[in-house]
């Protein structure tokens, strides 16, 4: 594991998506460590284990078995040790309801899974290079959903 690299955690049950994600991170020129969990239960176990380092950015799929992304989000925001983790929702859904709900529950950004690998790379690049302190303080409903220019 490289030191000073960003620690990224992706919670997604889809194997292909994890593969795309891994490949995309390998191709961008930023030093990152990427870890994966396969469902909500595993995610919470991982985060609640004090042995594990907390991620700098958590990419959270909403539609997961055992525990959904929304449930995880609520749990994380309720837990004192975890509530400051930057959370990027990473979902196929673009329904208003999902966007609204996760915004209210305190997610930092909402990413609709792209259907193009190059777009994915651009998105990931954008998210990991954002100055999160600045972004979080100016967070509102309009810039919550990530749109690429």
């Amino acid at each position, binding site marked *: 594991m490289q030191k000073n690299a960003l620690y990224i955690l992706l919670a997604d049950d889809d194997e292909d998506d994890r593969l795309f994600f891994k490949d995309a991170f390998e191709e961008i020129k930023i030093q990152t460590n990427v870890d994966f969990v396969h469902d909500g239960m595993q995610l919470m176990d991982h985060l609640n284990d004090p042995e594990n380092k907390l991620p700098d950015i958590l990419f959270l799929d909403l539609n997961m078995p055992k525990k959904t992304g929304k449930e995880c989000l609520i749990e994380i925001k309720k837990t004192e040790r975890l509530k400051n983790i930057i959370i990027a929702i990473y979902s196929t859904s*673009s329904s208003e*309801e999902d966007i609204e709900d996760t915004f209210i529950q305190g997610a930092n950004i909402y990413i609709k899974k792209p*259907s*193009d*690998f190059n777009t994915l790379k651009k998105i990931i690049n954008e998210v990991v290079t954002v100055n999160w302190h600045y972004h979080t303080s100016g967070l509102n409903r309009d810039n919550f959903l990530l749109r690429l220019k």
Partner: protein
Amino acid sequence: MKWIPNFNSSNSLRVIFVIAVFILLFLSSIAYKHNQDLNESSKLVMHTYEINIQLERLMSAIKDAETGQRGYIITRNGRFLAPYLYSRDKVNASFITLKKLTADNPIQQRNLENLFKLIIQRFVSFENCLKYSDPKTYDKRKLDNYMFGGRILMENIRFQVDKMNDIEKKYLENRLKIYDQEISLSPIFSISLFLTALTFILLAYRQISRDFERLKVFNKKLLISSGLMAESEIIGKFSTWQWDLDSNKIDYSDNQFRILGVEPNSFVPEKETFLDFVHPDDKDAVAASMQGIIEKKNLPFIYYKIARPDHEIRHFKSTGKLLTDQQGSKILLGINFDITDEHLLNIELQERNRELEKSNKELASFNHVASHDLQEPLRKIQTFISRVSDADKAVMSDSAREYLSKIESSAKRMRVLIDDLLLFSRTNTTKKEFIKSNLNELLENAESELTEIIHEKKAVITATKLPKLDVIPYQIEQLFINLIGNSLKYSQPGRIPEIIVESEKVLSAAYPDLLEQTTKKFHKITFSDNGMGFDPQFKETIFVLFQRLHSKTDYPGTGIGLAICKKIVENHKGHILADSIPGKGSVFTVFLPD
């Protein structure tokens, strides 16, 4: 309480009668007084005559004495002296009677005393005359003196008697005059009183006969209305009952018996009889609410079941109110409705509602499936295609490259279809929050959404002032995007697209076939373009889902855009129309309620 007709006249009748009775009482008391007065005056007349007679008797006694004395003086025969001797007694007796009769009159008493003195003097004079006429003591000069003095005394006595008689007469005359005045006044007075009483009685009679006529009319109306009531109870399947709380008497309308499944008046209703018909499940609730009416004075609708004697179950709805009638007695009025038909219909409706809810849920889950599960594999296909690098493509055969590009474009089309379908279904299912919005702002948002294509086509969009309306903002924005997007898409090659958005207020009455007439005013917003237009025979069908007028290759699209427009306008209870002249342009007209 105004529900019983008011007969005001009974009070005035009472007043008239009381007045008439008082007048009659007054009249009879006057008649009684008259009688008394008459009696009094006749007594008075008698009294006066008695005094008169006694005075005359007194007079004649003295005259007798005088005559007797004269006879004796002339003849010296002692027999002539007898009347003289008796006359003294007669005078005394009369005098006593007169004294009694005039006891109430001091003037007459004084006169009587004077008279008595004169009479005594007269008798002294008699004695002297006898003395000086006696041959033994004869003195002609003295005898002449006394005889002459007697003559004068007699005249004085006469005068005194006449005076007394006059006083009595005058007194009588005065009294009679007063009575005469009283009597002469009263006949006119009593006749007029009698006439007044008669008038009052006649008035009362007229009032009574008028009331009687009114009563007859009311009675007739009452008969008609009670007949109508009974008929309407049968038609409307309801019934009424009254419970007089004071007399504790309960009346059922005929239909009350019928809806309970028995013949009218087949039993005498009592407080508990109704409960016998109530289904055992509801007995407690109905009993409690009947008690509740008395306490709360009215009864909110209660719903319960009735078990008829033939075991048929009917559903009832009841209400009641405590009324106070004109006489102040409390009457509990109850109304029962047989709502069995409605109840069954309701159950059917509820069943259908449940089905609808179920199918709505299914639709929502379809929505979910479309948004997640259908998109997932498609996204993968597209991502995997994007992962095939140009280097990979270079080593492929031409046909493989061709196939790959066809897979790519089909996947793209699939994506557009899914997105549009989702949009269409969300137009219907997402919550509809109406917010007062400036349509000009929404139009600006729509234009900024379409910036790219507007720039590319150098389109000119002109908009007049649009109204502020209660709308679902994102839907109206979508409507504007779709309509303007449509115009831009089907613009005339080689001509700069011009789109004019105009708005005016219209009355729904001007479009009776199109618009909901319950809303009076609508805003008619028109989108006119100079595009290629379409054959007007399709002006209805272009709003149908998946309906396309052009081939996919010329104009890519899903045929959902205008269907969404129609849905959005319908969500706002408006109407959308399209018309066109091919080659000149199209006009889309949106009506939105004010």
